[in-house]
């Protein structure tokens, strides 16, 4: 029972990170029907932006809560600008062409950013503790870490904010309209390009937040972290039903729990395999994902 509860905490923590990144994949897919393979690299760049910003501001020497907030906001803003730039420079010129062109470009942007990361940042770097860390033993053998609490509270707050934007604001209604039909949205007077840009910004902000949370948890970041977490988050988005916001959250949590339960009860070597076993399973039995709408591809 203790093992189960412990893996539940670990799984929700990991799953929250997957969910934050998966939201970026799913929202961009919703508006452009594009799998933005560069999204994982935006996440990676967010971690390094946070590192260099913390060093530059001296927050790594004198950690403080306001300091961390400045670093967080800075890293998230950096990701927003990066995400919007990628859309503007790499995807928008291709929007009228076949979707395959954009997909291949996305892979190209992903490789480009990863290699820029390797050139600029080298390999693994350690990430300083910016916040006091604590562990609480809830009962014998069941540990809750302050990092888990950070991840839960930040993720819940960001998801409530996202829900508010998408469901209650005019820009959120516009995002939903654009994801149904760009032409019809334009007939409402909605500046579609700006809405697409905003969608990239929101997704990238969430990735930036995920990057900082992971960096504060694991204390190491590397230029290839985007492909590992990015791929898992993409699987999470597909599990939940790509294009669906609740689906991305559910898929992320499900994947996180599946991974930690498998490492707890079977073997940690099976941890990565379970993600892809789940992916294959869902593609075989419910290709539209848990929350996805069943759509027939029109020929």
């Amino acid at each position, binding site marked *: 029972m203790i093992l189960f509860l412990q893996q539940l905490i670990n799984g929700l923590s990991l799953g929250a990170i997957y969910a934050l990144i998966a939201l970026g994949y799913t929202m961009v897919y919703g508006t452009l029907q594009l799998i933005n393979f560069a999204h994982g690299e935006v996440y990676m760049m967010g971690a390094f932006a946070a590192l260099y910003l913390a060093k530059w501001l001296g927050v790594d020497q004198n950690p403080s809560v306001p300091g961390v907030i400045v670093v967080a906001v800075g890293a998230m803003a950096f990701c927003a600008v990066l995400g919007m730039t990628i859309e503007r420079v790499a995807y928008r010129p291709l929007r009228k062409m076949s979707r395959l062109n954009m997909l291949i470009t996305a892979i190209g942007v992903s490789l480009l950013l990863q290699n820029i990361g390797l050139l600029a940042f080298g390999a693994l770097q350690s990430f300083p503790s910016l916040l006091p860390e604590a562990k609480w033993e809830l009962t014998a053998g069941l540990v809750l870490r302050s990092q888990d609490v950070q991840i839960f509270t930040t993720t819940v707050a960001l998801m409530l904010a996202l829900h508010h934007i998408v469901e209650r604001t005019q820009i959120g*209604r516009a995002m*939903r*309209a654009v994801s149904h039909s760009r032409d019809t949205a334009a007939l*409402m007077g909605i500046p579609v390009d700006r809405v697409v840009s905003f969608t990239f910004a929101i997704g990238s902000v969430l990735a930036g937040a995920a990057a900082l949370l992971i960096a504060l948890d694991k204390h190491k970041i590397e230029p290839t972290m985007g492909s590992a977490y990015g791929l898992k988050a993409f699987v999470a988005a597909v599990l939940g039903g790509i294009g669906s916001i609740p689906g991305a959250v559910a898929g992320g949590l499900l994947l996180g729990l599946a991974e930690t339960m498998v490492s707890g009860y079977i073997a940690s070597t099976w941890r990565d395999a379970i993600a892809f076993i789940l992916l294959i399973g869902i593609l075989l039995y419910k290709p539209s994902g848990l929350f996805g709408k069943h759509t027939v591809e029109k020929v």
Partner: protein
Amino acid sequence: MSAVVNALELRDLDVWYGQIHALHSVNVNVEEGRITTLLGANGAGKTTLLRTISGLVKARSGTIRLGATPIQGLEAHEIVRRGVSQSPEGRQVFPNLTVKENLQLGAWIRSDKAGIEADIARIVGIWPRLGERMAQAAGTLSGGEQQMLAIGRAMMSRPKVLLLDEPSLGLAPVVVAGIFETIKAINAEGTTVLLVEQNAHLALRIAHTGYVLETGAIQQSGPAKDLLDDDAIRAAYLGG
């Protein structure tokens, strides 16, 4: 007749889809304060013409004037801002958004909250059934209700010129009759209307002026009542 002003003027409009010449130097005057109808069979280019006016398709040559201002080449959302809105073919309501959210999006270019609420109330006054379904997803509405919503949504930007693409499509005659009455009422309150229709009889009965489009070119035009009496039109579009 000399007092009639053109709200919208299309001059020598040529539109190509790749290798296909979709519109051949089309000239249309949409007179201010009136209903102008554009008739034609499926594939004649009616929808292309409306999409070109709205900026979703770019003309290769020719001009589109709104009042005195050329608007061809402007982006679609900018054309709405200038005062031309469209209820597109097939209604195209946003199915996952509620009726109210659809109407709110129609008012995207406006920021006067009280005015927007008043206009939503006005549309509910015209179509009480939309009022009953305000919080319902638009995709759950019947075809007739979706058409009402699509027109209401296009009215929410308070356009000078309202473009309507086949509002009768796929609807029962009694529903169509109601919608055409409303189009007349909207026009009587001062909105200029360009109505694209296959249902020539109905359209000519509420319009002042008619144009007939055939394979991308205007074949005939004139006062609606003359077209109603025209033998060739009767044979081609009014069932003899």
